[in-house]
């Protein structure tokens, strides 16, 4: 095999290995669960409810694949999970935060993914490995929006 080709393969293998290694770069911020809630903001600041709504209806965030809600402009919403209308009446800000961060903490058999967790997962695809589904900032924006959904 030509040397250049071999070194390319070594390089590719190294890149593949780097991609497979747990990402240290995306260090999750620590948080404290109190009862069934995470009372403190993950970022130390309050999120932006407008950005939060935009995130909730964005397909790649995955929320409305399963949930429906007060989004009349959205033709395609799921019915696998509770309607998000009234979330802010049903749950406190801290309860909503834990449900987004790690719903499995409250119910091990839930189908709701843990949006701020990278451990305990199996065969995560290369593009997503070592990354949480949502960033701390995105979670705070969504929490800020959900608390406004009152009956």
């Amino acid at each position, binding site marked *: 095999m030509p040397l250049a080709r071999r070194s390319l393969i070594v390089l590719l293998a190294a890149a593949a290995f780097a991609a497979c290694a747990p990402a240290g770069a995306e260090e999750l911020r620590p948080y404290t669960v109190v009862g069934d809630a995470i009372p403190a903001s993950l970022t130390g600041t309050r999120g932006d409810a407008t950005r939060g709504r935009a995130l909730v209806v964005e397909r790649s965030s995955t929320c409305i694949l399963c949930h429906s809600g007060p989004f009349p402009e959205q033709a395609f919403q799921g019915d696998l999970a509770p309607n998000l209308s009234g979330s802010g009446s049903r749950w406190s800000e801290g309860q909503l935060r834990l449900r987004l961060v790690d719903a499995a903490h409250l119910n091990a058999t839930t189908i709701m993914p843990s949006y701020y967790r990278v451990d305990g997962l199996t065969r995560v695809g*290369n593009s997503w490995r070592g990354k949480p589904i949502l960033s701390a900032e995105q979670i705070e924006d969504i929490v800020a929006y959900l608390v406004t959904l009152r009956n």
Partner: protein
Amino acid sequence: MRVAACIALLTAMAGAALAAEIPLDQRRSGYSFMSADTKAMQDEDTDNPGMLSVLDGETLWKRKAGTADKACADCHNDAHVSMKGVAAHYPAFEKAFGKPVDLEARINLCRTNHQQASPFAYESRELLALTAYVAQQSRGVPIAPGDDPELAPFVEKGHALFMQRQGQLNLACANCHDDNWDKKLAGSAITQGQPTGYPLYRLEWQALGSLQRRLRACITGIRAQAYDYGSPELVELELYLMSRARGMPVETPAVRP
């Protein structure tokens, strides 16, 4: 011993994670979730885009290939007779490998062993066409794979994969296709994942595609690493799904949204 431990583990896992397998009398083909228009497209051969591949496959069936200069028809004669019911029994146990192979792999084994030709690539026009042609001969025949006792451990492996949560979204096939098939994901029917009509024409793909392609798309959907085409895992999943669909009629070439 190992198998027994495996089965015990699976039973424990199933107890913890799964509500229940779908009762026989509640099983439904993906067909039953479709709109009247899409159903009509599947029902009428002249409207079914999958039939173009079937016709392609018929041509390939009769065309000589490889160093042996043999056509499929030279050994198997009239596919309407020789291939009737065959696809309903796949994946089947391949003694030479000691593991199951799906219909695509069987066709490629025929090519390499008997025609002495190079195998077709997965999802190539030719492989899909020949597979569709062969499978179409089983249209209406009840699905019946997995009778071979040697297949049992592979069915179990497929079942375990079906139950295994994976990916960034941490979901198992069963979470949707056993437990929530009557619901909607972003407005679309989830369905039970019964593989009754493969290869099938998907409007979303604008093409015919294999069950392996569908499985890979679902696995990517939960943000897990898709298994490679031809990998044992995909064949085991195919085998489990076909055994789960036992008795349901073959629809190839089906049309799906």
